[in-house]
């Protein structure tokens, strides 16, 4: 347990207090832990990271399966789905998918992917794994809270998973759970017990996020090793740090929205309900506003997309620099743009609500703010491109996924500029254009960041390498697959096809593109099946992969100075001190094409820049 380790000393000492030489070595050899302590109720950040990762993979398979199911419906609206009866039971009615269950599928797909995979699975995995390793700490500030964070997530997962199987079906009001639909079981059966479980699960999920977030922030602020000033932090850590701050400020607002919705649903309040006549009955609720819920929801919901994407941005920056053998271009601009995005992400939420009846003046304000956020995003893209320019690029699988990330982020980000324009959003709101936009810019991109991170840090997680050839196949299949799915989806969206439609066959306006929808479905299902290559590679390599070396990518950051498989406490001896920024790749005059952060300037006199001479 954490108490056995010198982490406490660091906590008391604060910044830079861990002086090399003063640490008491050999913590990882002294004690035997039971299986339960080591792998289940572990307080080791590395084990917790792996728990988040494997839970995330589990959820991604579920989320992907759900999407394949509704893509079957959308691609072949006339087909009989009788053969799915063994899996879906009563949700197949006379060979047809139940339309309410279709809505439940899209709702749960969104919820699972956004929260359970891309928030918990991505940020939970890599914030946990990398923060202590990259800042030079023995563990998180509170290992126990960290453990709680995972187990709250686990309980939340169990509840959400259970909700898939209940009789009235899981929540079905869309992942945004707009009331009154989500508040009234009379309106849709998923708003009965399914929605209750959804809300309970999300409340626990938020607790998990807050426990984790507090920990990440505290750790980054207090436990950095000697010499690791904020301006020497790898961009990954900056990204995780700001992500945690966003989560800490935004998730409580979702909690309040969920709480008020629970009150409306169960205790007869009218926060979001007014003037409703449903199922042959006028409800007594008056004075509430469904729009209020949307404000509360999107006050989390918009930062949430940056919570999802910023860790990916950080990891991609790191991986691009390492494999281009070049310093990241514009390190400070990269931090600045992360700060800018973090700040702006809190004041753009109502661009999701241009046509909800919100005052048009507010719409104008949010349009201005929204389009400003495109500037830091553009700066990031240009800096990534400049990082590749005149590099010496090694195409590891992680590098390919990082390049893929940049490509998808551009493709999806640009259409955001159209959607952020209120006048254009009138037509595009809630169409497949929106679906294509966010699946590229936050869905696929964040997934690519996740894969890049897994391939890159796998050797440090499990001491073995993932198979590169399978990785290449996985990458090209997924990359091409993603474009084949989401590029044509823009066409469908420009034509005005509404999202969350069980079928479009009832409308003349939406009669074209049956073939294109079939095409999208085939591409999506093939790309999903391709992911099993990754899953095979992942689990196979944990036990049978080629053994890794300490620093297989010749990288500069601190985690690569640990043993092949770092034990509890991370460094067997003293925590190394840091002397330089993390991106000294291909420095002129240096012997190797990388200089680790731990190498003092006095040892690299031949490569020191003029201003570094003073620090020798």
């Amino acid at each position: 347990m954490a108490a056995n380790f010198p982490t406490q000393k660091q906590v008391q000492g604060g910044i830079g207090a861990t002086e090399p030489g003063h640490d008491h070595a050999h913590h990882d050899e002294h004690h035997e832990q039971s299986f339960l302590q080591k792998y289940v109720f572990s307080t080791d950040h590395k084990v917790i990271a792996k728990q988040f990762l494997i839970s995330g993979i589990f959820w991604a398979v579920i989320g992907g399966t759900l999407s394949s199911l509704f893509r079957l419906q959308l691609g072949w609206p006339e087909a009989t789905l009788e053969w799915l009866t063994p899996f879906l039971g009563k949700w197949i009615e006379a060979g047809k998918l139940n339309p309410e269950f279709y809505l439940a599928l899209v709702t749960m797909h969104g919820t699972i992917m956004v929260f359970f995979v891309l928030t918990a699975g991505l940020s939970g995995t890599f914030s946990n794994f990398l923060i202590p390793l990259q800042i030079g700490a023995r563990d998180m500030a509170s290992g126990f809270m960290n453990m709680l964070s995972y187990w709250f997530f686990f309980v939340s997962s169990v509840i959400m998973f259970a909700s898939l199987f209940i009789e009235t079906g899981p929540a079905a009001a869309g992942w945004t759970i707009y009331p009154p639909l989500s508040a009234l079981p009379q309106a849709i059966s998923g708003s009965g017990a399914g929605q209750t479980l959804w809300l309970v699960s999300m409340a626990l999920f938020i607790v998990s996020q807050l426990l984790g977030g507090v920990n990440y922030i505290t750790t980054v602020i207090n436990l950095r090793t000697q010499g690791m000033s904020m301006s020497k932090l790898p961009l990954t850590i900056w990204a995780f740090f700001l992500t945690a701050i966003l989560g800490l400020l935004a998730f409580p607002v979702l909690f309040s929205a969920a709480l008020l919705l629970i009150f409306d649903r169960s205790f007869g309040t009218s926060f979001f309900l007014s003037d409703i006549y449903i199922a042959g009955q006028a409800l007594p609720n008056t004075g509430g506003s469904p729009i209020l819920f949307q404000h509360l929801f999107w006050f989390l919901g918009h930062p949430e997309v940056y919570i999802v994407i910023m860790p990916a941005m950080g990891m991609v920056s790191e991986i691009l620099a390492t494999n281009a053998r070049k310093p990241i271009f514009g390190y400070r601009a990269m931090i600045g743009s992360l700060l800018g995005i973090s700040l702006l992400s809190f004041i753009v939420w109502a661009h999701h609500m241009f046509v909800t009846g919100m005052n048009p003046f507010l719409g104008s304000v949010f349009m201005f703010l929204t389009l400003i956020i495109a500037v830091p995003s553009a700066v990031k893209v240009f800096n990534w491109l400049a990082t590749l320019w005149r590099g010496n690029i090694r195409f590891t699988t992680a590098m390919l996924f990082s390049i893929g990330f940049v490509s998808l982020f551009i493709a999806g980000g640009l259409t955001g500029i159209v959607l952020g324009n209120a006048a254009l959003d009138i037509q595009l709101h809630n169409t497949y254009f929106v679906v294509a936009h966010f699946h590229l810019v936050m869905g696929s991109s964040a997934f690519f960041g996740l894969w890049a991170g897994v391939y890159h840090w796998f050797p440090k997680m499990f001491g073995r390498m993932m198979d590169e050839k399978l990785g290449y196949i996985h990458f090209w299949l997924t990359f091409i697959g993603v474009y084949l799915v989401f590029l044509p989806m823009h066409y469908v969206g420009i034509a005005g096809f509404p999202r969350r439609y069980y079928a479009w066959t009832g409308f003349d306006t939406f009669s074209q593109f049956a073939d294109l929808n079939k095409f999208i479905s085939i591409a999506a299902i093939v790309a999903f099946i391709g992911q099993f290559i990754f899953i095979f590679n992942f689990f196979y390599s944990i036990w049978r992969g080629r053994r890794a070396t300490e620093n297989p990518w010749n990288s500069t950051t601190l985690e690569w100075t640990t043993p092949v498989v770092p034990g509890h406490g991370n460094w067997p001896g003293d925590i190394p001190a840091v002397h330089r920024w993390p991106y000294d790749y291909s420095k002129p005059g240096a012997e190797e094409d990388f200089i680790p952060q731990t190498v003092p300037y006095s040892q690299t006199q031949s490569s020191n820049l003029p201003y570094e001479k003073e620090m020798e």
Partner: protein
Amino acid sequence: MTTLSIVLVLALLLVVFGLLFRLQILTSIFSGSSNREVGVSNRVNAIMCMVFLIGGGAWFAWSFIENFDKMNPPIASVHGLATDKMFWVSMAILGVAFVLTQVLLFWYSYRYQHKENRRAFFFPHNNKIEVIWTLIPAIVMAALVFAGWKEWTRITGPAPKDAVVLEIMGKQFNWLVRYPGRDQKLGVVNYRLIDAVNEFGFDLSDQNGVDDFTAGEIHVPKGHPVLLRIRSRDVLHSVYMPNFRVQMYAVPGMPTKFWFTPTKTTDEMRAQTGNPNFNYELACNQICGRGHFAMKMSIIVDEPDDYVNWFAQQKSFSDQNPEVLASFKQKSEKLVNKVPATPAAAAVVTPAAAKASL
């Protein structure tokens, strides 16, 4: 039997893949390529980047051109022409940025692939170009925002005084439409008065409502501004008319509105599209439950004269449902008998209902 053979084939395929995978590992060990830091696959991936750029770019261009006609729903409103133009201008600007950045991304990946004797260029930052490429998107953004803002304020500004007014109410799972009748005033409604007959919740003690009529489809005159007053009586819906580029949520308890000017009659559009069955359609575009995908209503754009004729032929709700009118008369008589002061009758109007009639 078929299932069994499919399962067998899949299982065999898996075995074959497994063997190939093992074989690949063994060959890479024997050839020693597993020890080399950068092998042949680096070159293959670099080439794949170019193949992807060129192949993907070609497919994108082809599929875009192929589908272009299908992806533009014919426009039939004044502001729709403006927003569509703005949409494609924005897309063109963004398209340039898209092509430029993607070409650079994959070209650099190919061009600067690993070479044994080369060293990357140590280039940590350059303030000048960073300022330049912060300013360029900022300026482009400012231009796009300004254009969008002007159009948005125009579209969402107050409707012209002479606009034709009608009310659309969303319910699970169809639309209800109401016109103000000859007095051009929509009467008071109250959701508590809704029942199977009085679907709108007409409060017929309000004189303005007595000549209101409901309709099975929407009729609007060509070339005349139309103001939609929008309500919902249960959950959220969204009034979405793709051909008019109109969209606004229907919110229970909070009436919304949207105005537009249709530019082509249904007949003209039928001629233009060559589809004799063409109809403008109203769709629901906010998830509302089981029947969300089938919440449709037809919109007929008439020549102004035809519209006036159609309007004149409509029978008011109170005419069609005299029993509802009678029940209100009874009620108000009772009220008058009980409380002599007539103003009390007005007080029956709930605040919510008053809001709806605005």
